[in-house]
């Protein structure tokens, strides 16, 4: 049977609506919010855009954000007047810097909960306290936090299904404050996000939120330990900061990350380096240059993300595959003497 339209009056529609509302409760519970604060969107990017553009008011069009945000925050922020606050060598923002950036026309402060490349956990709680003093709303892109660490109770919170083993292309903005819609159409999602809901995706998102298990850091720690021990001239980025347990970002001095990623993929290991541009080529990561790495060093970093089902044997096999590839690349590289 074809699914009903959740906005329809008939029973098919009502059934779809019921399932969607169950999902809304599941997502709300996972982020510690009320169900009516959950606005389903077509993913994290849309939720970030809604938070940023939907917070602008007459006379308040200034946004404060950080240099290590995902492009889904940085790009919309660049469309309005934005102050981009730098971070320290571990990728952490100094809440005092945020304080200093606040202006009378500041509409929103947007600080991500967990950095997607480093796994570092930002002091969003402190930012919230400062923002409260100044009466400025706070948005946090919590796409990388959900299911891995506590999701901050910010005024606006972005989450995405596919980072918690849900379907791709569905996310939500949790809005604890009124938000103006930025696309126009029907009255869906309490008149905050028009368009027929992606019921299947939303139901999947709900189910994923009902089944969250925070990753153990032990496997990631083992991976780091093995790499640092067996491969010379390596360094873990952001290691001095609080981090979520699944991500590590390693600098392999003097080699290009790109052939390393390809060489590993050909051996069956999916890792990443930098940021993919529209063609699929890799561009040096703005996050890594923001924590003080040179463009060359930023190109020499790999990001490893561990997930459900990864085992210690796999971690050992990965390092065993990594070792000869790194050695071969270093032999080729004139930069590595």
């Amino acid at each position, binding site marked *: 049977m074809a699914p009903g339209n959740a906005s329809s009056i008939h029973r098919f529609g009502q059934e779809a609506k019921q399932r969607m509302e169950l999902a809304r409760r599941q997502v709300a519970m996972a982020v510690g919010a009320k169900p009516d604060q959950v606005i389903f969107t077509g993913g994290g990017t849309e939720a970030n855009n809604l938070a940023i553009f939907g917070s602008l008011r007459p006379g308040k069009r200034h946004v404060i954000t950080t240099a290590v945000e995902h492009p889904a925050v940085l790009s919309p922020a660049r469309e309005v007047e934005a102050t981009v606050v730098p971070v320290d060598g571990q990728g952490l923002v100094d809440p005092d810097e945020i304080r200093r950036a606040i202006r009378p026309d500041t509409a929103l402060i947007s600080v991500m909960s967990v950095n997607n490349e480093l796994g570092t956990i930002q002091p969003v709680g402190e930012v919230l306290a400062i923002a409260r003093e100044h009466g400025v709303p706070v948005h946090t892109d919590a796409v990388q936090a959900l299911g891995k660490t506590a999701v901050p109770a910010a005024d606006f919170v972005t989450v995405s299904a596919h980072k918690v083993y849900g379907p791709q292309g569905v996310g939500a903005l949790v809005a604890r404050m009124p938000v103006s819609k930025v696309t126009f159409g029907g009255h869906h999602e309490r008149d905050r996000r028009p368009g027929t809901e992606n019921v299947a995706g939303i139901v999947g998102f709900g189910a994923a939120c009902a089944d969250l298990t925070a990753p153990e850091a032990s496997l990631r720690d083992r991976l780091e330990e093995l790499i640092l021990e067996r491969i010379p001239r390596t360094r873990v980025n952001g290691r001095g900061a609080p981090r979520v347990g699944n991500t590590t970002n390693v600098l392999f001095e003097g080699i290009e990350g790109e052939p390393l990623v390809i060489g590993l993929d*050909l051996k069956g290991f999916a890792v990443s380096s930098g940021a993919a541009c529209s063609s699929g080529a*890799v561009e040096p990561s703005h996050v890594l240059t923001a924590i003080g790495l040179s463009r060359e060093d930023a190109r020499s970093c790999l990001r490893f993300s561990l997930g459900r089902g990864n085992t210690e044997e796999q971690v050992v096999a990965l390092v065993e595959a990594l070792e000869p590839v790194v050695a071969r*690349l270093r032999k080729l590289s004139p930069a590595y003497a």
Partner: protein
Amino acid sequence: MPKETIAVAMSGGVDSSVVAGLLHREGYDCVGLTMQLWNQRRLPELATEQATGRCCSLDDVYDARAVANFVGIPYYVVNFEDRFEQHVVKPFVEEYLAGRTPIPCTLCNNFIKFDQFLEMADGVGAHKIATGHYARIRYDEASGRWQLLRSADATKDQTYFLFGLTQSQLSRTMFPLGGMLKPQVRELAMGLGLPVAEKPDSQEICFVPNGDYAAFIDAYSREQGISRERKPGQVVTPEGEVLGEHSGVHHFTVGQRKGIEVKRQKPEPLYLIETNPATRQVVVGSNAELLRAELEVGQINWISIAEPTAAIRAEVRIRNRHTPAWATLTPRERGVAVRFDVPQRAVTPGQAAVFYEGDLVLGGGWIV
């Protein structure tokens, strides 16, 4: 027995697609790689409606990926933008502004495709690289050298752009199309069922839209903050007679006839004989005055023979479309002096001179 791993340089065009299809069919372990060389969105003022079909467009990457998926080989896009700009685009613009006519394709072959791409291939674990160039490579037992030869399809031969290949590069490179005619390649593409079998050939320098060098150089200089103030100069005859003014030496190429504006008309058509960036003069004259018998060639790479110690005879090509002409090559301290038996038209500093003996590419260098 599993054969070697080959990194196939895939542009999304017919030729490199056929290479991937052929090598895969022959049982090689292939990895398709597309070099992202230039961001076409970077100089938006150059955007035209015919934005497709240029290098590194998303369409080409889409096509290359489609072919790799169709053939069934792993495929990746690798970012060479920084290297391409440093080794090809920047020198191209600088040379042009200095009044010479550079060949970016040769720079790209020397510094990107057969250098850093080979390194990338090494990095991903490939033993050799393969490209869709029209040229042949063979190993000569007698001399112990790798030789470069003209392609079977004389109209497609690309050896003029490949004279910089070293022995080690040749030993690790495959040109599977070198022995074929272009129509055969198209037929093969059809036969293999490749999704790009009917795609038109690319023509121009890949990063310069519509072949408009001057517009590209203006746009790039503006972006880079290189002074692009109009530097007009004089148009003069070889005798020094001033005939008019021009708007900048980089608008001219030796041998060109169109686009030279003079106040006083001469009875015969005027050709550009030489540009002199130091005095900002461009020298024009008759077709006969364009002919030169002697030239110097530097930065020579000897391929199929060892560096000669005495004068040798060879056919010399001074432009891609030039029919090689017989000449005597005399070794000099740096490079060789070339003396043509019959004077040749439009010898252009900055272009390559490539030496042939029949199909064999002896070597080549840059016209001083």
